[in-house]
């Protein structure tokens, strides 16, 4: 039993890493053999030496972007959760406001970003807001669904204890919605980073989006790749952090298909 678990873990870690290494080797060979210029596709070794050389600066910019994403994530998810709780208590609010929530979701964040920069400036706030906007919808939809999808038997059971509405909410609906909430949070981790970077594209003096944009202007493709990799690492780290928290909080849920 234990041995099997170890084998499974090994498969989860070992396989992706070996594939990754394989792709890097193929990439390196491809660029070398076809003599592709650096500004189009740099070699992985060049990218990694660039990362190593500018690590502190890259980390600083990644840190800023991740900070924007994290604050936006907290803000968007908190607001989305609160609105979902209001929706679950008032059908009028849900019916009246849901179309606007959908409108907010369907408007591309790229289209809104310039406006956000105009309103909130080129500093960190416009990026936080962009992140919050993209995080808002998944949590709203999932929380509403989670709060509502309570099995009728459970409701009958609590009614037989003459439970009050707020007790049903706290003891039943809220914990029942946790798996739904966490699946929204996991989707949001990636979206939050996207929101922050899009905000930085429009106007910023720092952050990973700013690095990507300026390196395009100067055809510094190596630097751009380095920045892309850093943003990806930030996103992955963020995702696994939430994944880890989920495993502790929603421990009763089978987490085999947790993506």
């Amino acid at each position, binding site marked *: 039993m234990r041995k099997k678990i170890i084998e499974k873990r090994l498969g989860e870690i070992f396989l992706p890493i070996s594939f990754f290494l394989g792709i890097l080797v193929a990439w390196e060979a491809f660029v070398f053999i076809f003599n592709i210029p650096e500004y189009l596709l740099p070699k992985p070794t060049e990218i990694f030496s660039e990362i190593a050389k500018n690590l502190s600066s890259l980390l600083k910019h990644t840190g800023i972007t991740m900070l924007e994403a994290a604050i936006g994530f907290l803000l968007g998810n908190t607001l989305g959760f609160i609105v979902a709780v209001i929706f679950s208590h008032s059908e009028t609010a849900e019916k009246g406001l849901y179309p606007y929530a959908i409108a907010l979701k369907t408007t591309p964040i790229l289209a809104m970003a310039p406006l956000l920069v105009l309103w909130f400036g080129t500093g960190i706030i416009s990026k936080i807001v962009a992140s919050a906007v993209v995080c808002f919808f998944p949590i709203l939809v999932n929380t509403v669904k989670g709060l509502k999808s309570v099995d009728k038997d459970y409701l009958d059971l609590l009614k037989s204890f003459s439970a009050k509405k707020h007790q049903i909410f706290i003891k039943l609906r809220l914990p029942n919605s946790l798996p739904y909430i966490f699946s929204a949070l996991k989707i949001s981790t990636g979206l939050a980073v996207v929101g922050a970077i899009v905000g930085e594209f429009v106007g910023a003096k720092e952050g990973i989006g700013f690095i990507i944009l300026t390196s395009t202007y100067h055809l510094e493709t190596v630097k751009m790749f380095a920045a892309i990799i850093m943003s990806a690492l930030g996103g992955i780290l963020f995702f696994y952090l939430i994944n880890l928290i989920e495993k502790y909080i929603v421990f*009763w849920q089978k987490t085999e298909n947790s993506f």
Partner: protein
Amino acid sequence: MKPIVEVKKITKYYNSLHVLDEISFDINKEEFVSIIGPSGCGKTTLLKIISGLVKPTKGKIMIKESSVETALKRREFGLVFQNPVLLPWRNALRNVELPLEILNYKGSWNSPRKLLEVVGLKSFENFYPNELSGGMQQRVAIARALTFEPSVLLMDEPFGALDEITRDKMNLELLRILEEERSIISTVIFVTHSIPEAIFLSNKIIVLSERPATVKEIIKVDLPKSRTPEIKYSKKYIELIECVRKLLKKD
């Protein structure tokens, strides 16, 4: 003595679907009554009407001479469903404590710990529902239903989802628990579609007809008061099975 539960001409329509038709019967204190009938005849609906969770279209339920709404507020019913309906984020003990928590009760009702011991789960207090077998989960559900000392225990096919061996064992366990906790609970309404189960457990069997269900017959089970598995080989038991089977077949 007045009956504990009076079912008076209960009729139920779901939209145009006629489910129950003028069902009447009484249940006395210390009776174990089974409701049996063809599947889909509305047994569960009847049980839900008795417990006040579903409103009848016509008719009335009286619990200890007051309305079912009052009875629900007074928490006269302990419910056990076909599924255990345990909260997966609470361990066995915390599931049994749930009713007391909701009632904010700090008095001297049954200790959840003791009830878990009674249902044979003393060493499983800290186990979560997904770590317990189906039979064990149902034991937790029974313990939970007894915490606030309801007047009537309502069981809706509680062992229907279990395999036959476990089911037989749980039948014996239920009788043992009821015997041990006689001071707490003595009246049971038990919905089942298993004829042997109904006869083995009950003092009285209410046989319902096909939908729209009417009371076809009320059978008194005159088997010895304390039931042992040996009863199942007695002539009387086999006759009763025959009798109920014939009643259900006639439709």
